[in-house]
C-alpha cells in the first residue's frame, strides 16, 4: 500500500530495504497512470484511518512520539508523517511514531535471518563430523534443530528437517538422500539470507520456502488467475500429526498449474469441495513469487464434469517431455518437492520396480498397492493419460483420465484419522 499524499508505504514482503521494491514499483506505476481509479479497498481504508488516528494523537502529544522514535533508532518507513517523505512540512510533529506492524515484521525478519545463519552453521558442523556421526540416528538431533527453526519463525524449514529425520537409515542409499536434503536446506538458507539481492519472484519464492508466512487476506487481495480450472488430481499425505491434502488444478486457458492445500488434524475433515475430474470456473490467487500454491477465490457454484480431459492442450506429455517440464521448474526453484504433470504413458514392470514409460523413457512409480492396481486396471497395460505428482523419489499416480471419466487413484487419508463428512 502506498499513501502518495504524505508518502508512506506498507508491504508484507520480508525485505529490509525501505521502501521495498514492491512499494516503489507501485508508486512508479501510479505516477505513470497505470493504477486504475477504484473504490478504496477495506484494508487500505483501515490503514489510512489508523494512521490518521495516530497522527492526531501525535499532534496532541508530540513529546511522547518523539521519545519513542528516538528510542527505536529506526527509519520511520511506513509512517504517514515520517521520513522518506519529500514533504518537509510533515516533520512538524517531530520524529514519527514507529508503526507497530513494521516493527513486528522487522523483528520477525531479524529472527528468521538469525535462524537461517544458525541453520547454515549446523549444516557445516554436519559436514565437519560427517554423516556417519551416530548423533544423526537420534531423532532428538533433528527435533532440536526443528524446534530452533520454529522459534526463528522458519516453520517450513522445520517441517523439512522433521521429514529429513525419517530418511536416516531408511534405505541402503540413505546417505545420498540425506545429503541431497541437507543440500536443499543449505540452498534455502543461502537464498533466504540474500532476499534483497534476488530477482523479485525468486526472492518471494525463497522467502516462502524459508517459512515466511503470508496472510491469506494478503494473498486474496492479489490479482487472481481466472480460468476454467480442471481438478486434475488429489493426494493426501500425513505430515507429523496433520493430514495434508494437495489438490492440483490445471487452467484450461492459461495452461498452468495451481495447488490448493488443506489440512486436518485428528478427526477433522479435509476439504472436499473440489472433486477430481470436474471443472470449476473461478479465481485462483497465487502466493507471492508465482508460486504453485494458491487460494481459491470466488468461483461459480456448480462444477461441471469434464469429458475426455486427455485432449486438453498441454496434457498428455511424453515421459521425456515431462522430465523437461519438471527440470525447468526445479532449475528455477531447486527446493521444489512436488509438481504435477500429466503424461501419456503405460505402467510397466522393469528391473524389479514399477515404472511409467513410453518410447522416450521411463520414470519410477511411487505408489501404494491400491493406486498401482487402479492405474493398471485403468490402463489395461497400454498408454493412458495419467496425472502424476513428481517427487525426487518417484512419481505418485493421482488420476487416470479415461474417455468418459476421470478416476481418482491418488493416495487417500486414513479415514480413521480424519473425520468423515456426512
Amino acid at each position, binding site marked *: 500500500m502506498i499513501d502518495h499524499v504524505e508518502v508512506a508505504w506498507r508491504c508484507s514482503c520480508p525485505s529490509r530495504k525501505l521502501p521495498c521494491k514492491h512499494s516503489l514499483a507501485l508508486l512508479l506505476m501510479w505516477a505513470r497512470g497505470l493504477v486504475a481509479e477504484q473504490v478504496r479497498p477495506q484494508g487500505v481504508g483501515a490503514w489510512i484511518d489508523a494512521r490518521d488516528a495516530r497522527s492526531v494523537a501525535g499532534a496532541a502529544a508530540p513529546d511522547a512520539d518523539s521519545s519513542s522514535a528516538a528510542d527505536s533508532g529506526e527509519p520511520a518507513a511506513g509512517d504517514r508523517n515520517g521520513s522518506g517523505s519529500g514533504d518537509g512540512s510533515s516533520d512538524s510533529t517531530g520524529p514519527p511514531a514507529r508503526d507497530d506492524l513494521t516493527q513486528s515484521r522487522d523483528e520477525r525478519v531479524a529472527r528468521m535471518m538469525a535462524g537461517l545463519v544458525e541453520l547454515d552453521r549446523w549444516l557445516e558442523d554436519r*559436514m565437519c563430523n560427517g554423516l556417519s556421526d551416530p548423533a544423526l540416528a537420534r531423532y532428538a538431533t533433528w527435533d532440536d534443530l526443528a524446534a530452533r527453526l520454529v522459534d526463528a519463525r522458519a516453520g517450513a524449514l522445520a517441517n523439512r528437517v522433521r521429514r529429513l529425520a525419517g530418511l536416516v537409515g531408511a534405505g541402503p542409499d540413505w546417505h545420498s538422500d540425506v545429503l541431497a536434503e541437507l543440500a536443499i536446506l543449505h540452498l534455502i538458507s543461502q537464498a533466504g539470507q540474500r532476499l534483497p539481492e534476488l530477482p523479485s519472484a525468486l526472492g518471494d519464492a525463497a522467502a516462502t520456502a524459508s517459512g515466511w508466512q503470508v496472510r491469506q487476506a494478503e494473498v486474496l487481495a492479489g490479482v487472481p488467475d481466472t480460468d476454467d480450472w480442471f481438478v486434475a488430481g488429489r493426494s493426501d499425505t500425513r505430515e507429523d500429526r496433520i493430514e495434508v491434502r494437495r489438490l492440483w488444478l490445471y487452467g484450461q486457458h492459461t495452461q498452468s498449474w495451481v495447488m490448493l492445500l488443506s489440512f486436518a488434524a485428528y478427526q477433522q475433515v479435509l476439504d472436499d469441495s473440489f472433486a477430481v475430474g470436474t471443472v470449476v470456473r473461478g479465481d485462483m490467487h497465487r502466493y507471492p513469487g508465482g508460486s504453485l500454491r494458491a487460494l481459491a477465490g470466488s468461483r461459480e457454484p456448480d462444477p461441471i464434469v469434464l469429458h475426455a480431459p486427455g485432449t486438453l492442450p498441454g496434457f498428455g506429455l511424453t515421459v521425456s517431455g515431462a522430465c523437461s517440464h519438471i527440470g525447468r521448474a526445479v532449475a528455477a526453484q531447486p527446493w521444489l518437492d512436488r509438481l504435477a504433470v500429466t503424461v501419456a504413458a503405460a505402467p510397466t514392470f522393469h528391473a524389479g520396480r514399477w515404472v511409467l514409460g513410453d518410447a522416450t523413457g521411463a520414470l519410477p512409480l511411487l505408489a501404494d498397492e491400491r493406486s498401482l492396481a487402479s492405474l493398471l486396471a485403468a490402463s489395461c497395460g497400454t498408454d493412458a493419460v495419467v496425472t502424476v505428482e513428481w517427487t525426487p523419489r518417484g512419481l505418485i499416480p493421482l488420476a487416470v483420465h479415461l474417455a468418459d471419466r476421470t478416476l481418482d487413484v491418488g493416495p487417500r487419508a486414513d479415514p480413521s484419522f480424519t473425520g468423515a463428512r456426512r
Partner: protein
Amino acid sequence: MSVEALWRELVTAALLGTNRREPPELPPGPLADVVADAMPPSPAARLLASVGAVAAARRAAFVPLPPAAALQPAIRDARPFCSTPAVASWREVIAEWPVLEDEWLLTVVERGYRLAPDVLVEMLQRHRTDPVRWARVALAGGPLALWITEHVPSLAAASKREPPVDAVTTLPDLAMPPELAELLALDAHTFVGRLLPGFESLQFGASHKAVLVNLLARCRADVLVDTADELGRIGYGLAFAMSDLCRLRHRMLTQLTGVPLA
C-alpha cells in the same frame, strides 16, 4: 566427470566428514564457478557449497530411465463400464446398506456392464476372503480382473477353491419369517397395505430391523417407491431408515437398468 560420479564422490566425502578428509575439488566448469563465487571460508563450507550446487544440478537435469518393455495388455472386453452414478451408488451401498451389494453386482453382470477400474480393484480387495463374492467380482470384471490379479497377486482370492457356479450367479436368499416372506411377490398396493400397519402400530421395533431389511432388499422392485413414500410419512427412526433403504435400492436399479421403475 559426470554429475552422478561427482555426486558419489561428494557423498563419500560427506560420509567421512571434513575433519577426516578434505572435500574434493569440483572439476573446472559452471559448478566449480558457483562454489568459487560463494567464497566458502572453511573446508566444511566448501563441501556444503559443492553439495548444494551439485544437488541442484542433479535435480534439475534428471533424465528418464531407458524405455522399458510394455506389459502384455489385458484381453479386450467389449462391455461398457458401469456408469459414474452407478459407481457412486455402489459406494453408498457399501457404506450404508451392504445387503444390497450382491444385487448391485449381479445387475451389473446381467445388464452387460463391466466394473469400472477403480471399483474393480476395491471390490477384489474387499471380497478376497469371500470366494463366492470374489468370483462374482471376477465375473463382472471380465478378463481385466484376472489380468490385474496376475500383476498384483495380493488382490487374488484367498482360497483357491472355485465356488459352485449357481452360487455365483444367483442372488442369495435372505432370512425372514414366513409372514414377511409372503410379501415378497405382492404388488405395490397390497405390499404397502400389509406392511404399513406394523409400523403405524409401532409393532416393529429395533429387533425387527434385520428381517425388515432383508424383506426390502428382496421385494419386487416396483413396490419400492410407494413403500419409501409411505414409510417416510410415518415419521419415526426405523421407518425413516427403511424408507432410505427403499430409495437407495430403487435408485441403484434404475441406474443399472436404465429404466425408471414404477
